[in-house]
């Protein structure tokens, strides 16, 4: 049975997830790349109110392709972007806005891992580049913010999704990080690879 989480997420359910679990989500998602993180953090610094509720939604590191039609915005392709670029903002962002689930690719750093545990949040991986597959699970665009200022990829898009996934939990709220575990295994493999190269030289 596929685990489907619904927004707004329950903190206990999120804290119960373990790195290695696969989940799907249904509900509200907002996109945020580098510049959206900056804009949202600046808003918090200056005490401005923002026009949506990040604590009740999942955050998607994504710059989608969208098309304007007579009936409104239509999502075309929307896979995840490389999350590590947001490492410089993410810990502060999580502590400010209490977003409980991040969707991205490639994983994040130590500061984010610590913030996930503090806030009660997880980082999940969606297959990089699988933009058409992601778009199929996005039912509609409910809004867009800072489009003029940031342009299509960097704007904050508000999405309604149904059974969006599969999402692999790679960093959980208990300090587990699949990427760190894998790095140990890869280091070991590299020693054998170097030995093979030197053996031939």
């Amino acid at each position, binding site marked *: 049975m596929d685990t489907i989480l619904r927004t707004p997420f329950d903190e206990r359910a999120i804290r119960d997830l373990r790195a290695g679990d696969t989940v799907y989500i249904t509900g509200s998602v907002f996109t945020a790349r580098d510049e959206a993180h900056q804009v949202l953090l600046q808003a918090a610094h200056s005490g401005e109110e923002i026009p949506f509720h990040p604590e009740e939604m999942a955050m998607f590191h994504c*710059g989608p392709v969208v098309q304007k039609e007579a009936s409104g915005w239509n999502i075309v392709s929307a896979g995840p972007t490389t999350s590590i670029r947001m490492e410089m903002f993410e810990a502060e962002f999580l502590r400010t806005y209490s977003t409980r689930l991040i969707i991205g690719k*490639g*994983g994040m750093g130590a500061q984010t891992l610590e913030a996930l545990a503090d806030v009660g949040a997880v980082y999940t991986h969606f297959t990089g580049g699988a*933009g*058409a597959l992601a778009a199929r699970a996005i039912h509609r665009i409910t809004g867009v913010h800072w489009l003029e200022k940031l342009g299509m990829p960097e704007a904050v898009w508000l999405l309604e999704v149904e059974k969006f996934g599969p999402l692999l939990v790679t960093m959980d709220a208990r300090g587990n990080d699949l990427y760190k575990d894998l790095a140990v295994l890869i280091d070991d493999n590299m020693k054998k690879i170097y030995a093979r190269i030197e053996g031939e030289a």
Partner: protein
Amino acid sequence: MTFKLSGTFWASRGTIAYSQAKTVMCMDERILLKGLQEAIRTAATELPVDVVDAISRARDKEESTGAVQLSAILENAEVARRNSVPMCQDTGIQTFVVRVGVKFPLLSSLRCVIEEAVRCATRDVPLRPNTVDPFTGQNPGDNTGHHIPYILWELEEGDACLIHLLPKGGGSENCSALRMLPPGVGLAGVKRFVIDHVVACGGKPCPPGVIGVGIGGGADLAMKLAKLSLLRPVGDRHPNMSVARMEEELLDLINESGVGPMGLGGRTTALDVHIEFAHRHPASLPVGLVYQCWADRRKLVTVDGAGHVEVS
């Protein structure tokens, strides 16, 4: 309206002004424009068969996480093809390698036809507007700009023209690298640099993809050769036996690393390694590396002297 090589050529002002002025096209130009638009669309929406086959074979060798990632990629490619939507939201910087005969009848208008095709395809496919002015931050919204679309010109004999399309995303392009190695490290040093770099990139460039390597020449030529090597299909071996052997050996060693699909662990980190080489300066051993993600998008537009256009 004539295009002259002059000091301003390097600022590209001449070429951009020329393209914008070109609003009326002759019949042959319009046919080529249609062919190019079709090629840009299918490049963005249809993953080449050699790549699909390689990913399918890789999936059969993977367990759990790796198999889930590769299945998602294959399902995604199928949805994109069926619905004619971009397989990845990053539709890339539009890059063209043009091998054109000096007697090709449309040589003088080729740049503006390519630029117009990019504008039309951005609107119609649609593609993500991906060109940002580094100084003002402005995005013209049509995937053109200073020097972009990027066109690499190779002049040849005859009256035909081959236009290779290589739209490449930012995530994998960010994992490009150049190393000016001391020649004393030899080919073992070249291998070590390539493997170290690919492994250090981890999941960032959306593996499994194709690793393009350029060896020799100078810094610019090594990078150019690395990128040109990506025009070759997955499974293609270099005609020079020594080069072909290194391609196979590097592929094997990279896949021993365990980085795996999407950097989540597994047996498949790369689908192929392609190497091109040039003679080097005695003091230099440049190695260029260009990482192509799994969305290894390639198309070829062939135009003969009579103006017949074929997209493959």
